[in-house]
């Protein structure tokens, strides 16, 4: 199989080429048609590379750890290196990002102003995302993490809806606020580990081996501070940054604003790929690095003793339930879809909380009673990340399609569109049902696995989360009823409402994936299962 592209290894190419492609777009002559086609072709080429990377992992030896690994010294003084590699979890997200970008480009054909800049920003954004997903070095992880903010800020700020100023600034500042702690925690971890190893290192593989057992080697204190405190600070730093990105309730209010004001392609990538950064961060860093912190007993305000993992699960449950209620309350179609992300990512978080609890217990006490629960929940969480990427991107595409034609996002202005737009109606229904988690479509498999994993670990919380699942149905039906059902609003009598062929082409791959994943999830699940089992079981030894 191909392992190098233009002399670069495949993963580095996935990171570098989008940026180069973006630069190319900026220097091309300013003809919209040309730019659009070139951008699409470049996007598709990159998608092919992403598929290639995924296939590479899929066909590789099961349980072999990271595939396509490459390491080159980069900033030796700090111990940072250009270390890339993918396991099943990142392979899935690389695939998702790779697929979504050309579709976003295709949807962006509707953009008429500064086309080349718009397309270039989408590709720059891809660089940021791919960088986070493939890197195995904490410092470059942080670098790409921050890098991904910038293009999105400009996409919202320049091409967004009426409230774009507020939304983009809120998005940017909120994310940067989280990054602050992230940066400090990164340095703390790097410093402590270098004190332990004698040489600086930000390599994630090394970190996951050395940091959790820091107390064994460094002693009870570091820099005169008890090691527990150091760990707790680093934990909080990481936690807040990733929690904002996911977003975990109550760090979610940037999301409805950013999503609803962003241009369609921006919303697609934001919900489809960017939210996964946070969950990926938890899975790659916070859960492996802090098993003892997750399950350390906490006493808050006289409440029964609990631990961080349980609190995390409580937040997940609140995200599921309150996200669904909030979505139900919206009258703005894009805000409704945006809140559905809070609801769906809540399930991801619930799965992650189970993994944190189980891995923590396993780390402290040994034993594998929770192992199967944790594996199922984490499988479900990762699958849910992929599924949510498909369905939320699809939903935003459809919301954008209708917004583009009616220039309003107010659900109360719609009504009965199924009369005039039968194809749009069919696709809207299909995507809504995938989002709702209808068995037979993709959303269900992930949710089923998460609930199965979470039920024995967080029984009551899971039962409460079912209320959220119920109201998922309520808000999805509200969306369908407002847009498609009811008497036709004669205001749109002469407006063309049917979906464009271009938009059908952009959403078709998503629909196919939704159906295939729902009917035969095993095309992707072994990839996830393999890595998750290794992550939770392999690290135990």
């Amino acid at each position: 199989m191909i392992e190098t592209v233009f002399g670069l290894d495949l993963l580095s190419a996935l990171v570098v080429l989008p940026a180069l492609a973006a630069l190319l777009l900026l220097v091309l002559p300013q003809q919209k048609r040309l730019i659009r086609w070139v951008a699409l072709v470049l996007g598709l080429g990159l998608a092919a590379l992403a598929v290639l990377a995924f296939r590479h992992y899929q066909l590789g030896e099961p349980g072999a750890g990271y595939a396509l690994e490459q390491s080159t010294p980069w900033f030796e003084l700090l111990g940072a290196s250009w270390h890339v590699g993918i396991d099943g979890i990142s392979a899935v997200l690389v695939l998702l990002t790779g697929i979504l970008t050309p579709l976003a480009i295709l949807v962006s054909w509707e953009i008429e102003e500064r086309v080349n800049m718009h397309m270039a920003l989408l590709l720059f954004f891809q660089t940021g995302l791919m960088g986070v997903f493939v890197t195995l070095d904490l410092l470059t992880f942080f670098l790409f993490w921050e890098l991904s903010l910038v293009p999105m800020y400009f996409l919202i700020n320049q091409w967004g809806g009426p409230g774009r100023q507020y939304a983009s600034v809120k998005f940017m500042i909120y994310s940067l606020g989280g990054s602050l702690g992230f940066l400090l925690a990164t340095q703390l971890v790097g410093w402590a580990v270098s004190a332990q190893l004698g040489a600086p290192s930000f390599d994630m593989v090394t970190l996951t081996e050395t940091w959790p057992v820091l107390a064994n080697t460094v002693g009870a204190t570091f820099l005169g501070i008890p090691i527990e405190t150091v760990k707790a600070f680093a934990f909080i730093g990481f936690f807040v940054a990733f929690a904002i990105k996911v977003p975990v309730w109550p760090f979610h209010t940037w999301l409805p604003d950013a999503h609803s004001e962003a241009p369609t392609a921006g919303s697609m990538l934001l919900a489809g790929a960017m939210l996964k950064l946070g969950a990926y961060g938890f899975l790659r860093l916070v859960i492996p690095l802090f098993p003892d912190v997750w399950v350390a007993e906490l006493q808050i305000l006289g409440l029964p003793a609990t631990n961080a993992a349980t609190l995390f699960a409580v937040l997940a449950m609140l995200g599921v339930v309150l996200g669904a209620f909030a979505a139900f309350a919206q009258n703005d179609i894009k805000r409704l879809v945006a809140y559905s992300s809070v609801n769906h990512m809540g399930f991801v978080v619930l799965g992650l909380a189970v993994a944190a609890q189980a891995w923590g217990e396993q780390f402290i006490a040994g034993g594998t009673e929770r192992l199967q629960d944790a594996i199922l929940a984490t499988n479900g969480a990762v699958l849910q990340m992929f599924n949510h990427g498909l369905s939320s991107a699809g939903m935003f595409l459809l919301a954008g399609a209708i917004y583009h034609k009616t220039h309003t996002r107010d659900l109360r202005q719609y009504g009965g569109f199924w009369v005039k737009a039968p194809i749009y109606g069919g696709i809207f229904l299909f995507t809504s049902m995938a989002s709702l988690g209808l068995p037979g479509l993709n959303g269900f498999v992930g949710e089923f696995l998460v609930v199965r994993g979470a039920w024995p670990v967080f029984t009551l919380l899971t039962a409460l989360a079912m209320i959220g699942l119920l109201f998922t149905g309520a808000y999805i039906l509200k969306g369908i009823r407002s847009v498609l059902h009811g008497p036709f609003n004669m205001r749109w009598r002469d407006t063309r409402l049917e979906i464009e062929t271009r938009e059908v082409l952009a959403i078709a791959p998503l629909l196919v994936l939704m159906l295939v994943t729902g009917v035969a999830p095993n095309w992707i699940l072994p990839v996830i299962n393999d890595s998750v089992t290794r992550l939770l079981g392999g690290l135990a030894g």
Partner: protein
Amino acid sequence: MAFDFADFRFVPWLIPAGPLLAFFLIMLISNRARLLPASDQAYGGHHPDYEGMEVPVVRGWSRVLSVVIGMAGVLLSLVVSLHLVSLGWGYGHHFGEEVFASAIPWLDTGTTTFDMGVLVDPLTVIMLFMVPIAVLGIFIYSIGYMAQDPRQSRFFALISLFAGAMLTLVVADNLLLLFVGWEVMGLCSYLLIGFWFEKESASAAAVKAFTTTRVADVIMLLGIVYLYLETGTLSFREILYNPAVLQQLATTPAIILGGSAAALISVFLIAGTIGKSAQFPLHVWLPDAMEGPTPVSAMIHAAAMVSAGIYAIIRMFPLFVAGADPHHGLFNGPLLLMALVGAGTALFAATIALAQNDVKRVLAYSTISQLGFMMAALGIGAWVAAAFHLITHAFFKALLFMASGSVIHGMEHGEHHVHEHAHDDDHDDHHGHDDGHEEAFDPQDMMNMGGLQKRMPVTFITFLIGGFSLAGFPLLTAGFWSKDEILADAWLGVTHGYLPHALVFILLALAAFLTAFYTMRQLGLTFRGEARTEAARHAGLGRGVVSVTMTLPLLGLAVFAILAGYLGVPEDFPLFGALFSPEAVGGNRFHHFVIETLPHNSATAFFAAVPDMQASAPPFMLVPVATSFIVALGGLYLGHRMYWRRPLRAGEADPLIKVLGAEVHETLRRKYYLDELYERIFVRPSFWFAHRAVDEFLDRGIIDGILHLIGRVFTWTGDLLKVLNSWLIDGVGDGIPEGIVALGLRLRHLQTGRVQQYLLYIAIAAILIGIVFAASAGTMVTAG
């Protein structure tokens, strides 16, 4: 494992494949529309004309092709099903322990794999007999019923998906696949109830159906999850045929709420059935589901949706019985729950049905009531009787719905006729039912009917057969035999002095009486006497394809509504037992066939730990049979007296109002005000919570409030720093040059322009410097 359809174990996979394939083919290929003005005749029926706006209307060839594809799909599954039915029926005594099953790996779960598969056992076989036949009838009927609809292709696609989902559910070998079919059916019912989505009421009914069943489904999902957790599998065979697993489930304490794991799982699963099979308190969606086209009602009420709930419980029955033995008076929570809910619902729904005037609504409540019979039967352990009633009910209820659909169609036809003649001049501007007329005239209201006996004789006869079967008219109809078996099972328990059996027996007997009464009331109001409106006077199906396709299925199903019962005649029933269940064919054929589905003989060592699911059919007893006779005939007689012998005239009030009293009647007519109650305690608080509490208070108020507060604090700090900057840093920066300027302004006074003054300064300076030099020279000298 690869699919190999030459191997008969893989054949069940093909059963749902036909309709599912038909769904995709119609949706992706054959569903083609052209744009027509909405005022065009082709866009008539139930749709508004939208001031002549252009709307898509299905093309002629697309209509035909879609019907053909849909029919082909259902015929394929019918053929395959009947093949399997004949294989299973002739398999012999071991069918049940041995089954046609195959599975493929579906999902990796850690180091294990979840398998998805199909299973055909005796229970599946009887469902495979009932479902495709009923579905075929419904499909044929839909050709005519939907012939005027501009979206007939879509209708066939959806109804194919519906059938495919039901068949998936029937052949599933595990609870997850069953749940897939279960939910897809939920979606289909949502889409089909809301098929005429322009009508607010249809759209609302669709949402209500989906939401209400979803309440149940999420609870059921928990049950599935919990079962999966405890057993590590969801396969029916692995759980139900495994005494060790059942034993463990019955003894493991539940994860929450006390009780055993088996009981909690059972309660969760029963909740699912309460939603799907429309039992109290989640029955509210089913009557509203009448907003859909009538074939859909038949589909939901007979062939698919509601049967699925009962089927799922029968399928998993050993789980519900785990740790109990109803045939020996040992009850557990889940069984009591089923018995109470079922018997209560049966009576409760029957009372509501008394006071309904909508021809389909009466049937809807009768469905709820009949499902209550099955549920109650399951609660007392009579699962075979429940299965029997499930089958017979499906046939006669499909028949009744389609017959009522014919009535409605006929009424619409009559209304159309009247309308055209009244407005001969401007009939181009109006067609079918546009907005104004829909409100004025309700073709489903029985008060508008009357006298249809003469106008629609075939419909009348078939409706009569269906109605009598529903009422349990003794000896002749299928409904009698199945209902009788339930009552017999209950009585058997009563003879042993078991209280739940007694309760079930009394409530069901009362419900059966009411059923017979309201059936007769419906027949009388609809068909008897003189027409009460002009539309009823001109009602009729017309001629041609529409009439033929809508009549044929009625005749076919009428046959089943009578004959299906003779499969399960108790062998010791006087005369009929010898006639229909002779020793030569092994007695009560239905019972002996179906009972093999579940372990039923605890004498064999293998099932020693599993309680006896049901040893044999109850023996012939006089009391239940007499009760059956009395309630059916009594109810029919009473109805006959009140509505048949002296038919209602136009403008006359329902005689029932006088009998019951206006207040009671109104309470029944308003369904005990449950819809209003739910509106007040569930729907409105949800809206309030979502809008006020979560969106406005929590998200915009508190969370965004805190964010904005943080933002404001930083802005304020920034302002402070700005002030600080302007006087401290700017003060210093600007102060230095300003000071220099001020100094210069003072010093410039030295510059007088007078040379001599300058010279004086120089002289003074020279002298001073000289002095300093002198002094320092001195010190230097001293120092040196």
